[in-house]
């Protein structure tokens, strides 16, 4: 399942000097902006949740650009290229429902307490054990593996840099940028990155679709199944795609911005506006993947969008688009490296090892933790072959570990036992891991679907277990463990009341 060396693709369109100048000017501008804003950081709360002073437009920019990275840009177009509009209907649309429900059900509950992170919520309800397990899951989820993969793909397509070196280079640039600023610097740079990624994608869509003969030519060229909302995926896989949207309810980046918002109204408005923008962004990426297929491009599916657009745009606009794609990746890398670093320092080290660490020490430790997270991300970016399967894996880890205990903490009014949270999170994490390991050891890679599948003979027929099914096993297991812990676990001390309201 090692991804590299990936097959090289033909490059028909190199960057001109003008394109390169625009791309470099963008990178320099982002570093300067990040540096200027980072000077206002005075402590860990400033660094991690921007002092709780983020307003609606700032939240829209940082939510949209952070939550949508290269995994969505390239992963969405990958599904569009291979299977059509199912990418929007089953891969993206469930997330909009999750985001709306998050605004309606979670925002008030989360902001009713002085939390800074997802593990804080678990800690308040169950104690340090569950905090540690949820922090580990949050750390794995937050590693910006796919954004780095996307940067590797981008540098391969436009500059001919081998994928492995592209990933390493992207990681290095992003690391320097991330260490410089906290969430406020991140969010300020996100405003430029958000505008750039949306405008360049919109303009690129117009030109690229025109180059393939217009949107209305797609139904005449592509198979009918490309316009079937279910595509050709098995029902269980569609269910897994939809289940992955449960990650929204325990999504560390969204939690961080909920805590960083100046008011409930600010985050409500930002999520509502964000859903509209996300919907448009997903539709365009899916359609560009389909347009690449219709144009006859025979490339690695995840290369489809980039190859089509870079082939289509004139000099100058290509540079802007490349800057927009880099912006898409950077806005995700810096935000999630910050969260992953915070998971190690604030969520694990501070409560478990050194509760009395001073603020400056915590800040310094967080920066080292960010560096470690970046190194781990590079290794993982070279492991996975498919953006979609990689995304589903970490979403399964987060959902399997945190969904049941955190939801119970936020919604149940009865006292919760530490054993319930710990058992639920541990069993969920273990189940996801066990399913992935088992399928990868006993199964085989399917060329048709591009994923690992274990075929099991049982009850007189054969069953195909995809590695992506892990969350379908993990959620019931986590729930059963929660109920067992709640019924059989020892009573807790007075501190352990049932979490936030």
């Amino acid at each position, binding site marked *: 399942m090692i991804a590299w060396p990936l097959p090289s693709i033909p490059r028909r369109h190199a960057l001109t000097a003008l394109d390169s100048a625009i791309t470099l000017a963008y990178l320099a501008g982002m570093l300067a902006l990040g540096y200027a804003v980072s000077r*206002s950081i005075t*402590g*860990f*709360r400033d660094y991690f949740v921007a*002092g*709780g*002073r*983020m*307003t609606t*437009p*700032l939240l*829209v*920019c940082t939510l949209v650009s952070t939550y949508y990275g290269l995994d969505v840009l390239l992963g969405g177009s990958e599904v569009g290229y291979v299977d059509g509009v199912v990418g929007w209907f089953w891969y993206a649309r469930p997330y909009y429902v999750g985001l709306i429900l998050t605004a309606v059900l979670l925002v*008030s509950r989360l*902001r*009713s*307490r*002085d939390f*800074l992170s997802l*593990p*804080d919520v678990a*800690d*308040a309800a169950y*104690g*340090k054990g569950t*905090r540690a397990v949820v922090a580990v899951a949050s750390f794995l989820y937050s590693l910006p593996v796919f954004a780095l993969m996307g940067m590797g793909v981008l540098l391969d397509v436009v500059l001919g840099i081998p994928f492995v070196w592209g990933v390493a280079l992207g990681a290095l640039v992003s690391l320097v940028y991330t260490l410089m600023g906290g969430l406020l610097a991140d969010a300020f740079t996100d*405003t*430029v990155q*958000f*505008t750039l990624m*949306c405008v360049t*994608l*919109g303009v690129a*869509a117009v030109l690229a679709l025109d180059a393939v003969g*217009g*949107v*209305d030519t797609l*139904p005449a060229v592509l198979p009918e199944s490309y316009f079937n909302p279910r595509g050709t995926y098995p029902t269980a896989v569609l269910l897994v795609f939809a289940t992955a949207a449960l990650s929204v309810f325990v999504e560390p980046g969204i939690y961080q911005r909920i805590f960083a*918002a*100046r*008011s*409930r109204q600010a985050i409500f408005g930002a999520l509502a*506006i964000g859903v509209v923008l996300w*919907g*448009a*962004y997903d*539709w*365009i990426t899916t359609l560009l993947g389909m347009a690449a297929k219709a144009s006859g491009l025979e490339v690695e599916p995840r290369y489809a969008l980039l190859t089509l657009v870079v082939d289509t745009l004139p000099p100058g606009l290509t540079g802007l688009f490349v800057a927009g794609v880099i912006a898409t990746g950077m806005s995700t890398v810096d935000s999630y490296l910050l969260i992953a670093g915070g998971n190690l320092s*604030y969520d694990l080290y*501070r*409560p478990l090892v050194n*509760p*009395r660490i001073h*603020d400056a020490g*915590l800040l310094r430790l967080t920066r080292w933790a960010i560096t470690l997270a970046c190194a781990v991300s590079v290794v993982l970016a070279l492991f996975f072959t498919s953006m979609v399967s990689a995304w589903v894996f970490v979403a399964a880890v987060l959902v399997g570990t945190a969904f049941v205990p955190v939801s119970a903490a936020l919604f149940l009014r009865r006292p919760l036992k530490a054993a319930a949270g710990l058992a639920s999170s541990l069993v969920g994490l273990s189940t996801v891991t066990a399913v992935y390991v088992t399928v990868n050891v006993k199964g085989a890679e399917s060329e048709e679907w591009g994923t690992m599948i274990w075929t099991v003979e049982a009850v007189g027929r054969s069953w195909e277990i995809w590695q992506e099914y892990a969350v379908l096993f993990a959620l019931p297991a986590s729930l059963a463990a929660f109920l067992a812990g709640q019924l059989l676990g020892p009573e807790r001390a007075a*501190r*352990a*009341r049932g*979490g*936030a309201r």
Partner: protein
Amino acid sequence: MSPLAMVTWAAVVVLVVGSVAIFIWFLFDVGSVLHGEGPAVAPTEDPEAGSEVDPPGGEGNERAT
């Protein structure tokens, strides 16, 4: 114009016009973020909250500020 083309054009308009409008809104708003005195309602927005459990992290685990 087909429904497919209409949806696609609508998405393009949302992306281009919407993102530029949000960015302009941010430019008008940036002063309140830079010079703001923190959250509008702090530290929590629920007046009844905060007294029922210890801070996350347990005893002796002071929140970093």
